[in-house]
């Protein structure tokens, strides 16, 4: 049985997928994961989850983010007067996300996507 392993480097970080282990049950999976995925990297916590229990949807099945222009959903669209610093920070984050989304889109188009 295959268990996917997720490693958290510091408290508060996300657990990130880092590989898998073969083990008959959860306890053994944790024990093996400890050696295989946390021995040589700084680790605060490990999760294991049975591979079969992980659900997946990918670009074959879904148009992530939709196909129409959704810029009206982004706060950046409504940015026409000086805002509070919290709003400004949030705006910057969203502008960055928007930029990345566009780069991604261009990349997909360049690869002959629709």
């Amino acid at each position, binding site marked *: 049985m295959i268990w996917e392993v997720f490693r958290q480097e510091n408290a508060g970080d996300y657990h990130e997928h880092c590989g898998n*282990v*073969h*083990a*008959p049950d959860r*306890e*053994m999976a944790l*024990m*093996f994961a*400890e*050696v*295989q995925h946390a*021995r040589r990297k700084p680790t605060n916590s490990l999760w294991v989850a049975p591979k079969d229990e992980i659900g997946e949807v990918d670009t074959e099945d879904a148009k992530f983010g939709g196909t129409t222009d959704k810029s009206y959903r982004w706060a950046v669209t409504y940015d026409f007067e000086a805002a509070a610093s919290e709003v400004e920070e949030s705006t910057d984050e969203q502008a960055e996300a928007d930029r990345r989304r566009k780069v991604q889109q261009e990349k997909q188009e360049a690869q002959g996507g629709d």
Partner: protein
Amino acid sequence: MAVKESLPAPDELTDEQQEAVEHLLYRLADDEFVVAERYTEWQVRSPTLESDLALANIAQDELGHARLWYDLLEDFGYTESELVWERDPSEWRHSTLVEQPFAEGDWADAIVRSYLYDQAEYIRLEALEESSYPRIRDRIQKIIQEEDYHREHAENWMSRLAEEKQGLERLQTAFDRLFPYALTLFAPTDEDVEDRIDELGLRSDPLDVMREEWLDVVVPFFEDLGVSVDDAELPEQYDVHHSEFDLPEHVGRDQSHTDAWFDLQEEFTHTYQKLDRHEANRIMKDPDEA
């Protein structure tokens, strides 16, 4: 137990004190080195990649612990070559449990051996936490923290092997074969020196007390799994002095060893001999500098 008065620095010990410290260190260092040497035979041969890595990890831990103990023997002027690569095999003091070859291809042997060993290891490390010798005391915490994984590993494997008939039979066979040798873990190197180790407060429990403590842990664990200990010929309440215990012919602690040890020693010193080495390469900082 309160800490006895601390012994002085290595170069200020009396001859009798130094002898006691040395015997204690050889027990520790030789066990760790030889058990690890045997574990490495499972490399690329373990049942799965995961179990291979887990046992390799344990072997590396034990080699690291051996290094910390041999380093304390170097305080008395010995070099690594004298302690490991050039020491006459008939002078080693490890228990004969750790030198036994594995029953071929028998993973249960590796697991039962590590269970018996690591439980004993934990008990003796606890008895050193308040050692009167500061150099030993200071290294215990580092080592003891790595031992939890070893015991958990052995226990997890044993309970899973015991779930099916064939696995249980393998556990039984390994237990019957290894248990008499495991008793030598608590055998004295020399009765007088061992008594001195206790009197000096180098460890807080004498060997027979630790052995009882160990039996109280391992015997019920095996019985709960369905492994019979009836053939182990345990004395009633196991509270006899160690010299009266029925030990195998070769005890290890007193420098008597089985033939398997001499073969193993030849094997791991082979390259050193062949390359006509006279000293060991150092690839790590001295533990005191780290």
